[in-house]
């Protein structure tokens, strides 16, 4: 009977859990790791990026984004949109071709893979015969031309991938007609480039690696013209009027050839950065303007000896000649053109480099950069920590934006030029801020409210200190008359002046605008938001955390030198107080209470409390174990060396990869080689027998004194009738210290001292590190943040009922009564499933059924990469989901939770994955991309391969149009099934 009743309750609870919790990985923010291919559809206004891990990502207007992942774990080497359609083709490193489409489903588009295909050569042919090196999506939208390493061109009907054998252009056919006097006629090598004649879709130019280009007529199946270039070919461009062909070559030259229909031998070659040997020009583009000279854009071609290591794109227009100098390797680039047909003047240059996407406004004087609303490199300096603040008050939001706008004056005013698709996501319910701390001492503020993680403001703390940076080492030192005329672009700058500047902890009070930032060398800055620039001196208050403990000598880095002269701080957050911990160890815990005007901090040696109004120390407590010498070593030297050697070997491999030219053939082989080497290195490391010592933790362990968490609470610490301000600190050794704080009345706050009185000390029996401390009010709800109640944004806590203390250790969750500390409830984690708490946060979960029901809960990420929700105040496990791979240690360490059940973690140095545990708070892309309105490309003459009319993109469509659209959609979907059938057939055959 009892069991039955319980069962009923359980199922009711289960239902409630379903209404409250649901796990989704919603969107990836930042820049894709290791991009390897770029594609663009002028008709859809969508950009596509393929990565080395086989992901394909599509971006349009801000908020419009799609992601797909190939089943094969192979790099995407090429991406081509089918002209005027919603399909795109990807070529992978394993020589497979994949067809993707954007299919509308319930009013939203989805990116789906609808077919795959691998060229099959004649039996017995070497694999090089079918190894695809060049792809041309023909403007008819029905044909795909595939050039191969063997020099053949295969013609395939798309999107069904049906080989049209009779239309193939074999190497023999071409070679037979090559002029006898052409030097390279014996071996034309692979097909390097395929281009369609913009004015005659029946003509394509086939560029062979050896240099020869052949204009081929697809209808008549014969060569029209031979262009006998003698240098190794890199790329080919057919000018828009169809009159000329540009070819770029491996010696840094480019040539212009007249399309005359007759063979001519005259080679008009130009080496733009000539005289000395130059590197290859890997891609060349020439675009006309309505009036005036054309734009010429090419990548590479730099003098090998002096600038061979630069990653440059040269843009030449009239008398303006600029070599855009990027900080990482160029993957690919394209231009966006004006006009409804996208055939007008070039308006923007979009460059994908290895670490960022740079868009250059070609119509504004000086060609400024357009700020990207997405794909922003989070890792322009390595991320060292992050902090999320939910529900920012409008006031603070506007001030931060204003401060940020002052920093962005060098950006172009032009709107973002890529505008495909419609963002149908509802407006975010609140303003959320994500703060990332970086290795170079900067803190970046991101608008994390919606799908686009948009940069708002950047704060640098380096100005407070003297650093090792050479002031003359200016990146932008463009001297007059320098040749080539370099111009640095992009913000990826991974080089830190001084690793001690690295930001380790951040805490922002969203109501008062006070911010505290703590760093690697024990520095803690307190900053205030100021709308005006101000010149001030920041004095350091030194805190000796060792408190005279004998026998310790700090072996780590020294503290940073503070600038003694006044420093001019621009509008925004300006430092006004600085605490310097001694020894200058990494700050491991930090919090700020804006109502009490106190900052508390901890390192591996102890913790302290600082009064930022009176600018003095209130409390210093050493937690260092007298036998713990390791805590004085600074950053773990041994761990570092392993990490370093690993990093070096990765660098070596990357270098060897980078130095390879783009031929997949060689690439693949060398990549394999490099991978094998890496594997061997890793295997070597694993040769040491993997065994684990089983030993109880003791108080003698190292780093037991490291302060892991620090917390302010107004609660009942000494007696149950009067609540007092209190400070709580938890250590790595499972110890919790509680201090009672006495604050002078507000009117005497500036004069009378704040005092801290030791009140309690709890040694957890299991000695696991304390990672979180929360006080729960009489209702079992976590205490609100400082000033939250004052701003009417939270219910005031229940101070009548008894408060509880929740101590979260790596191994268990334990609730104690207050003021007399005795254990009340607990939940064991490690003893039961062997996982340990890595990150924890308090979140509020709203029900998706009833608007007014919600619960507080603990969100926990374990070292196994699972996320759990633990109920409050009963500490019961509610749900758990696998989230991060357990091997991804840095991903787990980077995780940060929001107050509404979402979270972020780094999936690569440059990307945050956003996930949600809440049914109510889900931020995910919801967008629609419509099919261009003339899919049947029956019109014979097309001015430009991608020059589709895009009237469809008009948001206000008549109902008739919509109907037409549906029709098309249906037919398209019908067709797709037949494509799939075709696939099956071809696979069988």
């Amino acid at each position, binding site marked *: 009977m009892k069991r039955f009743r319980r069962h009923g309750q359980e199922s009711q609870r289960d239902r409630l859990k379903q209404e409250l919790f649901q796990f989704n990985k919603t969107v990836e923010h930042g820049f894709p790791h290791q991009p390897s291919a770029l594609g663009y559809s002028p008709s859809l206004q969508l950009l596509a990026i393929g990565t080395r891990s086989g992901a394909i990502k599509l971006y349009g207007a801000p908020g419009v984004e799609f992601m797909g992942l190939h089943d094969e774990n192979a790099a995407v080497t090429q991406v081509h949109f089918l002209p005027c359609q919603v399909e795109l083709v990807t070529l992978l490193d394993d020589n497979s071709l994949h067809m993707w489409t954007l299919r509308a489903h319930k009013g939203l588009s989805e990116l789906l893979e609808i077919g795959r295909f691998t060229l099959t050569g004649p039996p017995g042919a070497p694999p090089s015969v079918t190894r695809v090196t060049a792809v041309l999506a023909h403007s008819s939208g029905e044909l795909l031309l595939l050039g191969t390493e063997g020099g053949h061109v295969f013609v395939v009907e798309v999107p069904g991938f049906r080989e049209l054998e009779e239309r193939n252009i074999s190497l023999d056919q071409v070679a037979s007609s090559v002029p006898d006097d052409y030097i390279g006629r014996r071996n034309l090598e692979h097909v390097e480039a395929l281009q369609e004649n913009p004015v005659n879709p029946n003509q394509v130019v086939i560029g062979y690696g050896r240099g020869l280009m052949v204009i081929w007529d697809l209808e008549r199946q014969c060569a029209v013209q031979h262009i006998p270039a003698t240098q190794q070919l890199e790329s080919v461009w057919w000018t828009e009027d169809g009159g000329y062909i540009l070819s770029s070559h491996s010696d840094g030259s480019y040539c212009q050839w007249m399309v005359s229909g007759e063979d001519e031998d005259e080679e008009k070659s130009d080496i733009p950065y000539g005289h000395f040997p130059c590197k290859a020009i890997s891609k060349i583009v020439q675009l006309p303007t309505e009036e005036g000279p054309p734009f010429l854009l090419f990548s590479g071609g730099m003098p090998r000896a002096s600038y061979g290591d630069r990653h440059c794109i040269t843009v030449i227009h009239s008398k303006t000649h600029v070599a855009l100098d990027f900080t990482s390797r160029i993957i690919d680039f394209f231009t966006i053109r004006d006009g409804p047909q996208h055939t007008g003047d070039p308006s923007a240059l979009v460059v994908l480099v290895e670490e960022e996407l740079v868009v250059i406004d070609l119509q504004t004087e000086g060609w400024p950069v357009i700020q990207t609303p997405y794909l922003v490199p989070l890792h322009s300096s390595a991320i060292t920590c992050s902090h999320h603040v939910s529900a920012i008050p409008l006031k603070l939001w506007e001030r931060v934006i204003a401060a940020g706008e002052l920093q962005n004056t060098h950006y172009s005013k032009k709107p973002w030029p890529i505008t495909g698709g419609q963002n149908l996501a509802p407006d975010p319910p609140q303003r959320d801020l994500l703060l990332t701390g970086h290795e170079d001492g900067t803190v970046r503020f991101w608008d994390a409210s919606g799908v686009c993680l948009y940069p708002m403001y950047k704060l640098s703390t380096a100005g407070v200190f003297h650093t090792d940076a050479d002031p003359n080492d200016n990146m932008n030192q463009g001297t007059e008359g320098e040749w080539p005329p370099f111009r640095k672009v992009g913000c990826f700058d991974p080089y830190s002046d001084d690793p001690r500047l690295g930001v380790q902890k951040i805490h922002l009070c969203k109501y008062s605008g006070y911010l505290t930032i703590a760093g690697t060398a024990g520095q803690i800055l307190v900053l205030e938001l100021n709308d005006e620039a101000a010149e001030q001196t920041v004095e350091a208050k030194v805190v000796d955390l060792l*408190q*005279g403990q004998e026998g310790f000598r700090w072996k780590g880095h020294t503290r940073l030198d503070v600038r003694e002269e006044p420093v001019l701080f621009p509008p925004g957050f300006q430092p006004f107080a600085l605490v310097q911990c001694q020894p200058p160890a990494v700050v491991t815990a930090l919090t700020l209470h804006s109502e009490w005007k106190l900052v508390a901090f901890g390192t591996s040696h102890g913790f302290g409390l600082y009064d930022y109004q009176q600018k*003095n*120390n*209130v*409390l*210093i*407590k*050493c937690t260092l174990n007298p*036998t713990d010498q390791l805590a004085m070593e600074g950053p773990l030297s041994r761990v570092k060396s392993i990490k370093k050697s690993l990093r070096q070997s990765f660098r070596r491999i990357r270098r060897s990869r980078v130095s390879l030219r783009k031929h997949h053939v060689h690439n693949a082989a060398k990549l394999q080689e490099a991978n094998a080497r890496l594997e061997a290195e890793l295997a070597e490391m694993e040769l040491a*027998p*993997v*065994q*684990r*010592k*089983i*030993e*109880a*933790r*003791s*108080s*003698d362990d190292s780093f037991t004194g490291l302060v892991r968490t620090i917390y302010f609470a107004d609660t009942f610490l*000494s*007696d149950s009738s009067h609540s007092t301000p209190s400070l709580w600190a938890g250590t790595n050794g499972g110890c919790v*210290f509680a201090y*009672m704080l*006495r604050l002078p009345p507000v009117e005497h706050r500036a004069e009378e*001292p704040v*005092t*801290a*009185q*030791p*009140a*309690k*000390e*709890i*040694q*957890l*029996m*299991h000695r*696991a590190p304390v990672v979180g401390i929360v006080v729960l009010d009489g209702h079992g709800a976590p205490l609100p943040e400082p000033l939250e109640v004052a701003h009417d944004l939270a219910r005031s806590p229940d101070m009548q009922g008894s408060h509880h203390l929740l101590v979260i250790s790596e*191994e268990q969750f*334990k609730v104690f009564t207050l003021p*007399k*500390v*005795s*254990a009340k409830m*607990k939940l*064991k984690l*490690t*003893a*039961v*499933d*062997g*996982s*340990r708490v890595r990150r924890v946060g308090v979140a509020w979960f709203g029900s998706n059924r009833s608007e007014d029901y919600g619960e507080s809960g603990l969100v926990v990420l374990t*070292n*196994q990469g699972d996320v759990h929700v633990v109920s409050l105040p009963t500490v019961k496990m509610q749900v758990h989901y696998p989230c991060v791979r*357990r091997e991804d240690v840095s991903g787990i360490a980077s995780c940060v939770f929001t107050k509404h059940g979402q979270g972020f973690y780094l999936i690569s140095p440059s990307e945050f994955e956003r996930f949600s545990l809440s049914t109510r708070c889900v931020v995910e892309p919801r967008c629609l991309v419509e099919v261009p309105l003339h899919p049947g490309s029956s019109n014979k003459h097309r001015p430009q391969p991608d020059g589709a009319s895009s009237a469809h993109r008009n948001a206000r469509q008549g109902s008739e149009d919509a109907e037409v659209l549906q029709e098309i959609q249906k037919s398209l979907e019908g067709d797709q099934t037949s494509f799939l059938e075709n696939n099956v057939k071809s696979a069988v055959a």
Partner: protein
Amino acid sequence: MNKNHRVPSNRSLSAVEVKSKFGAEFRRFSLDRSKPGRFDEFYGLLQHVHRIPNVELLVGYADVHGDLLPINNDDNYHKAISTASPLLRLFLQRKEEADYTFGTNSLTRKKNTVLSAVLLRPDPNRKKPPVIISLPRDFRPVSSIIDVDILPETHRRVRLYKHGQEKPLGFYIRDGSSVRVTPQGLEKVPGIFISRMVPGGLAESTGLLAVNDEVLEVNGIEVAGKSLDQVTDMMIANSHNLIITVKPANQRNNVVRSGGGGGGAASGSSGRSSDSGASYYGYSSHGGVGAPASMPSHIIQNFPVGELESDEDDEDLVIEAGGEAEPIRRASSNYSMPSLLRYEPHLNLRVAATSTSTSTLSINANGTLPASGSSGSLSNAISTTPSLDRAIERRSLEEDGTVITL
């Protein structure tokens, strides 16, 4: 096992004559055999009649064989009363003194001195080495084999008592593969194995675990599918009371069970738990956390129940400083000198420290601790918790770097 005290012997008189010796003094009084009362009352009575209210005592009695046996809980107290014929001879000694008189050789020499807390079997002719009985609390249960009746014969469930031990657990585990029988035939599956024993460690000294034993469960939870690191963390999290189920690599030494009987016949317990009258040891239902609730009650162990349950490691040490006794503003003038602050907590802790043990069972487990007798000594302490001394003791223990709580 406790039959004796429930059914008083027919021969016994209704009153038990008690002769109690403390130091050189004797006291005589009598107790009602049928209503002996509880041990703590008896203990209080002893302190009262000897007029030594604040002295912690060890109570021993001479049994029918002339052996000196301890009285420190209700069971052995009842046993002593029920077997007394007719005189119950008690020997009291100060706890702290007694602690140092336990030792094998010196004590056997003092065979006839009543203060020795040893028992020599009264058969000197057999030249048997002396059997030494210490008080139960002086034993350090090291390990035991448990659940023999419910486990397959090839498995062994070993319990290691780390509590209060300075000895390291002392073993290592590794990844490996083991062969399982599945419907599809033999299958190789990953497993966790003991890879190394530290000489002199707890694990080695028990003799119950060996290198290459496969670890199947940790505190009742299967390790299959868990990574080496997970299993390591589980073991460390349970290290104060670790129960490992292993499949010993060497099956020859494994327990061989007699066919019909089944439960509880074989005890591999390392403690010599011969029935000496102290019914401290015995069968009891398992109170452990990790073990499934369905586990039968025939678990052989040589450890008090209370101690068993104290493996619910609730005994976090809470130290309250200051409290109402001290004015909050007391040190406020000093706070401009932060260096003064640092030593204050410790000073406070030493003087006014008091422990709140959340597990009442753990107090009982100590056996000799009276509930009310010693609280008088806490006249200057703020809290009413009865174990000030223990708290201080623990504290000092902790300072020495050993485990704080028993």
